[in-house]
């Protein structure tokens, strides 16, 4: 698993990363790191370590909706049968989280309904 130890030797200054656009990207002007590329990485990837400030990015409803709109053209892609990200553990874990929350809420509703219907058995 560990990389060969030559990495220590190769730590001389590397040229700063730059957007690369080969001649194969035809017709469109090069776009240096578009917003969607950055957002999908800084919001959806990267190391998750809980800090002292607890903010679950996924709790932020409006943000989630907007980002979904911006980052994932899900409908169109699914229509075409492109759904491989469903198997991406990082993305599907979010969905599992929502499913779990959904389940909890439904259980709670049933509980409440059971409670109230027990009381008000109107004839």
């Amino acid at each position: 698993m560990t990389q060969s130890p030559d990495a220590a030797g190769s730590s001389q200054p590397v040229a700063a990363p730059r957007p690369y656009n080969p001649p194969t990207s035809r017709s469109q002007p090069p776009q240096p790191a578009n917003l969607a590329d950055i957002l999908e990485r800084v919001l959806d990837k990267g190391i998750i370590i809980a800090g002292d400030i607890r903010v679950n990015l996924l709790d932020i409803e409006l943000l989630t909706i907007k980002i979904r709109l911006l980052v994932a053209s899900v409908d169109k892609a699914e229509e075409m049968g492109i759904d491989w990200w469903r198997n991406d553990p990082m993305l599907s874990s979010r969905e599992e989280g929502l499913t779990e929350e959904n389940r909890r809420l439904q259980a709670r509703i049933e509980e409440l309904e059971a409670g109230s219907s027990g009381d008000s058995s109107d004839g």
Partner: protein
Amino acid sequence: MAEPGRYLYAVSRGLEPGALAATRGLDDARLDLVEKDGLVAVVSDVDLDVYGEEGLRSHLEDLAWLERVARGHDEVVQAVAASAPTAPLRLATICLDDDGVRSRLREWHEPLRQALDRVEGRREWSVKAYTGRPADAPAQDAQAAPVTGGAGAAYLRRKRSQTDERRAAEEQAVEAASAVHAALAAASVASRLLAAQDPRLTGHEGTMTLNGAYLVAADDAEAFVAEAERQAADHPDLQVEVNGPWPPYSFATLDQP
């Protein structure tokens, strides 16, 4: 600044002190290195009025603010990744003080070390493929409609054949994208498929059929890009776009301890 907190951008090791001299943090703050047991967190002060739990909750709803923070975060991560192995942290990882930062480095030492091992000497490349523009198909419109049936029937026939053609083209594009991905996965150390992006953001009219992230040894970058170009040439029906190198956002992940 009211009460300052410590915003964490990335964890690294062997980062030379001068490496970030030309880089500033969010809101133009000075970058500091907090070290613990050979791991170093790149941090800066942030105002907890803005970056506290309440502040973040409301600010994150503001896309312009989010974009500024996302780009600022990425800029620092890029600078770190240019000089040392880097594990980028997710946006808005914030501790109250340096002791908090150090305790995270201690707590997550082993998984962080392993993550850095995985990405050391490697970079992430993004390769996307789009279907071509929706066909203008002037040639087809010019085709003489068959004589049988009226104008309405001819119209419906033409419509149907256009739909069929589009569907066939889409299927072909998906297959081509899978082939491109397979070839690039073979040319990289690891690969991940990301969700397709909306055309409103990418500026492409065609549908994104591939949004792949590939972890490539720094020494193999040229060969990888050459492979991507070869794939683009082999699949003229796709527009292939290569971007990078990125810091290894998609590959620096923690194995749960």
